[in-house]
């Protein structure tokens, strides 16, 4: 039996590793079944939580662990949970954001397909911590295999009493619904996701009110990424101190990175936060160097919505703070490597086409701005660029950055701004010579 998605992982290297944990069993063909999951200690944390811990204690433990949101923003998970008003008479919801659609990122998918129970267990613990009795797993619609495996795992969990009424005799009820997306990047943004579950168009909502106060159907709602939730059972099992012992002081724990682009060994790798980007790209156990022996030109470290890094920054440690310092972001961990034959203008054109297509159309700067940007960049790519186009791009990007409801606007312009800054001569060359500076030929 083969796995649904034949993605390279570093599970073998992790086996027996006392710290790395998320990918420990992802190469085990039967891990997706409840039986094997239980053999590997599955649902022990859920039993501990329901049997011995109060919700506040769970929140405290996760806070102490230093776990931060793995979806991109890096907000401390325990802190987010504690924002749910204690005295609110309303019901609460936990939503697992499994709408993984950031180009370059495909880590959640591996977890859902190969270790779905850990996602459900993490969701359950999170639900208990915030007092929720109905949780949703919102899975990207194109992820047929993930949907199938999560649904199957959910059914198994229900049938063996890990979900449902009076779980383990604790008196705690928890129901779960798998909700699938319909092909919108926007629905991976938490308020867009909430709108989508409500049956509305996938559009961002203004904050405040934050979802923790008023989210799904105006009730307190917590939205967590798959990877964040998958780490929670491990934190409960092995303790916050163990989790804190990994990574850096401010970026504790491990993180999954999806490595793609011009790389010899693309795949998903679990490393401790603070791991060197250089090592991730060049080490034989990870990326094993740039494809065709070419030189590195740029790295997008956290999915296409993060600014490009220049080769001189490639020794940056992969943690939230260091990447911010280097002028980019950790994001969702989708590392895209570009080698020397890549045309920056062409790359940016691809990106802006994506963002224009995915802009939800709610707020003006992003809706109109992305389309305008695309037209200017297309013009430059086609060799019709004018002398004032770069200035115009600078100005339009500045008018979008920080002016939109959700981060999509920022995501669309930050990569452009970073290339305008670091590769301006290449843009200029394109306009002046009506062709690429590099001899680009990828065959795609």
């Amino acid at each position: 039996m083969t796995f649904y998605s034949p993605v390279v992982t570093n599970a073998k290297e992790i086996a027996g590793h006392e710290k790395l944990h998320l990918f420990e069993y992802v190469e085990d063909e039967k891990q997706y079944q409840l039986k094997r999951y239980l053999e590997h200690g599955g649902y022990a944390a859920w039993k501990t939580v329901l049997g011995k811990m109060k919700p506040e204690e769970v929140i405290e433990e996760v806070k102490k662990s230093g776990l931060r949101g793995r979806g991109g923003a890096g907000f401390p998970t325990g802190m987010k949970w504690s924002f749910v008003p204690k005295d609110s008479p309303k019901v609460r919801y936990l939503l697992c954001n499994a709408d993984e659609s950031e180009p370059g990122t495909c880590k959640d998918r591996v977890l859902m397909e190969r270790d779905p129970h850990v996602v459900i267990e993490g969701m359950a613990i999170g639900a208990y911590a915030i007092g929720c009795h109905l949780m949703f797993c919102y899975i990207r619609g194109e992820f047929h295999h993930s949907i199938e495996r999560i649904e199957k795992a959910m059914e198994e969990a229900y049938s063996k009493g890990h979900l449902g009424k009076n779980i383990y005799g604790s008196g705690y009820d928890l129901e779960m619904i798998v909700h699938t997306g319909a092909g919108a990047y926007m629905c991976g943004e938490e308020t867009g996701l909430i709108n989508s579950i409500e049956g509305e168009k996938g559009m961002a909502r203004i904050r405040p009110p934050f979802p923790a106060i008023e989210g799904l159907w105006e009730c307190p709602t917590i939205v967590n990424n798959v990877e964040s939730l998958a780490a929670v059972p491990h934190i409960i099992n092995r303790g916050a101190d163990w989790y804190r012992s990994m990574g850096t002081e401010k970026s504790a724990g491990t993180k999954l990175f999806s490595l793609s682009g011009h790389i010899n060994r693309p795949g998903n790798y679990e490393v401790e936060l603070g791991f060197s980007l250089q090592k991730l790209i060049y080490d034989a156990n990870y990326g094993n160097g740039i494809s065709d022996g070419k030189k590195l030109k740029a790295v997008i470290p956290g999915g296409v919505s993060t600014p490009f890094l220049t080769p001189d920054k490639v020794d940056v440690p992969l943690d939230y703070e260091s990447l911010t310092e280097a002028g980019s972001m950790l994001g969702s961990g989708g590392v895209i490597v570009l080698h020397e034959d890549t045309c920056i203008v062409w790359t940016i054109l691809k990106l802006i086409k994506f963002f224009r297509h995915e802009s939800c159309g709610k707020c003006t700067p992003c809706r109109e701005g992305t389309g305008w940007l695309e037209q200017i960049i297309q013009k430059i790519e086609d060799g019709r660029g004018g002398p004032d186009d770069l200035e115009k791009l600078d100005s339009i990007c500045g008018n979008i950055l920080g002016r939109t409801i959700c981060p999509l606007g920022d995501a669309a312009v930050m990569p452009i701004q970073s290339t305008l800054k670091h590769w301006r001569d290449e843009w200029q060359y394109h306009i002046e010579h009506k062709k690429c500076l590099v001899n680009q030929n990828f065959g795609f």
Partner: protein
Amino acid sequence: MAEAVKEKILAVATITCTIDGQQITVPKGTSVFYAARQIGIVIPAFCNHDKLKPVGACRMCYVEIEKMPKLQVSCATTATDGMVVSTNSQQVREGRKAVIEFTLINHPLDCPTCDKGGECDLQDLTFSHGYDDSRFGFNKMRFIEEEKRDTFDDLKIGPEIVLNRNRCILCYKCVRANKEAFGEYDIGAFERGDLTEINATPGGEVSNPFSGNLVEICPVGALTNSDWRYKIRVWLTKTVPSICNFSGSGTNITFYKEDHKNFVYRVTARCNDAIDDGWLSDITRYGYQIVNSESRLKTPLIKKGGKQVKASWDQALAVIKKHMGEIKDQSGGVCIGGLISPSLDNASLYSFSKLFRTIFKSNNIDFRGDYRYLPSVTDSPFTIAASQPFSIADIEKSDVIITFGTDLIREHHNEYLKIRRAVNFFEATAYSVNPYAVKTADIAKSEMVYSPGTDELVINGICLAAIEKKLVDSSAAAKLKPKISKLSLSELTKQTGLGKEQFKELAEAISSAKKITFIVGEIVARSLERDKICAALSNLNKLFGVQDKGQLAVLSRYANSKGAQKLGLSATPYEIVKAELKKIWGEYPDCQPRNTDSMINLMKKEEIKGFITVGTNPMRLYPDRGFASEGLEHVDFLVACDMFETETTELADVVLPLCSWAEYDGDYINLEGKVQTGKQAIKPKYEAKAAFEIMELIASQSGVKLFENEQSRNEEIEQLLSLNSVLPWPDDFLEIDYDKKSSRDDYPVPLFICDDPHHSGHLTEKSPSLLNFSDSAYVELSKGMAAKIGVADGEPVRVESPVGKIVVPAKISRVLNSDVAIIPRNFSSTQTTSLLMRKKRVDSVKLTRVEE
């Protein structure tokens, strides 16, 4: 959000912030946008609307706030203590400029051919905030649908609405208002990014009863209506404040008129938070078109040789003088009767009353031409219930709202919207208790549909459930119980079709309410047993102390029903009013009071020989057409004043053209008792005259003046209006006798005759726009009922009652879920009321499919 707004309303706490150097203290939860407005700083915005939740879509309302690096949208930023806001800094101005630039890149800038020109937010804000040049060097996006393509890419998306997607700046106000304020979903946003378009839902059209508002709130010319399109430029019109003549709550409106043509071009809202929140029903918005109608009565008509012929006012008045004089001399004034419309202004109503009571010395007048079998007593439980105070604004302050016996979307649009607002914005809980499923129920916590004709039993059930569950004061319970316990709770459930749990739920809701609104509507008011139902309501009010913690009233239906009641326009006015009239006039006829029913009865007996109708059409509206027509046909001399030819004017010996409310200044008292003035917009069309003028002219034929002058008339009216016209409830609990429900299997389907959601009374069918929404009668049926008789939507159905028969197309309802039939009364082409019998509690009919 809702919490924040509630706090704002209750004003529990305040904060102080600084905006542009000025300190201001506002209730906690106020947004920066509204805090600024309080000190006169108007922050520009496209997507913000005072009555909708903020979305922050347009990004025009940026402000700079100290300690926040990015610009913030003021509509969605709550002002906090110590916040320092700048609404006009360099950064803010540049931010807004950028937004205007973005907004304009795909906007066609077709201002010269756009109807919004002159009142367009985008035009105004571009002038005040935008660039004078464009940096956008590409073709603008253009929506064109080849097969539907019309001039300027317009797309008709509803009976009245025309959409131009190219002009749309996607503020989403239309979609949001539809959803948040009206609970309608017939317009939506489709696609995404810069391809996003507003459109009618696939396969549907935008035709909800509030759809006109979407046009009004559109900040650009994307949504226009055929009412106003291409007719006139807004700057060529003048505005006049007025009051809607079709609603009981007196919706505030603005007329747009042009003097040279003496023409009203449109009606828009004149936002009054206490009444309408700036939302107009389509009836209010398009109903004005009757004013301009070509088919209005242009001159007086007199009957000559069986035919009505044109006449001058003098000729018509002479005929009236001759005939009325004869009747009065030969048979006495008691042989003259009159019926007036409760939509007319105070002056007209009062002049009518004075004409009858002081000149004809007759007590035969009424204003309720569409209520069957009204009792001739002054303080019946119904009259008491209808006189109770009511505040529309209090609806949104209530935590529990119960609507009983009312189909609000057909009767009271403003209250319907206020309830939606209370539920959606202020977390009120609504209950809908009706003999058939109504639209209001979609926001209700529970909808309870009881068997038609068991209204008072439902009330008794609530009382009994409360007594059983010990939710009410025990001594009151002990007093009431023997009076209503002839039927046990379980028997009541059997009769009414409601469950014990439902009675309990309502009892608990009423007893636990902190502030309650209990609305009773037309289904009760039009019922033959209105007094019995209101007696039960009197008990309920007493038992729960409803009015001690809120309001309970039968809402009056027409623009000036309350005024008519206060001015004594019924044959049996309140005692206090009668006494005051006697004082003012120095006389009051001591003859028997006759209301509508007994007048029609007396016509048949030829005891009423002369009859005057003003602005009303009993032939269409009286709920027993056979009875009404037999009466009116017997009248020796009938004078009918109306704006249009009606079934009643056709019978008349003299027809007088009546002014519309837009043609003179008039005061109207809304259902809350609030006096509002409708200003004259245009000069009277053709030879029409206002009713008060006509009354004065008729009086002058007897050589008498009704009033010395306008001032003395107004003083008399003022005197009457100053009286407290709230009647006290009975001191004791009332005994409710119980009559066994008689079911007639040969006519098994209960019938309700009411207004179409796009029409009101008998005049609105002269509005072309309203006809576009609904132009002929139909029988509205539930899906199940239609299946039972085997008809599909639009197929003809024979509707038979013991007295009449009509054939109308079926309309499958999205709301109804029980076996009832609803037929609108607004169309002259169908004699709807011929199915009704005036002494019947529940009209019932037999429905059959018409074979081709």
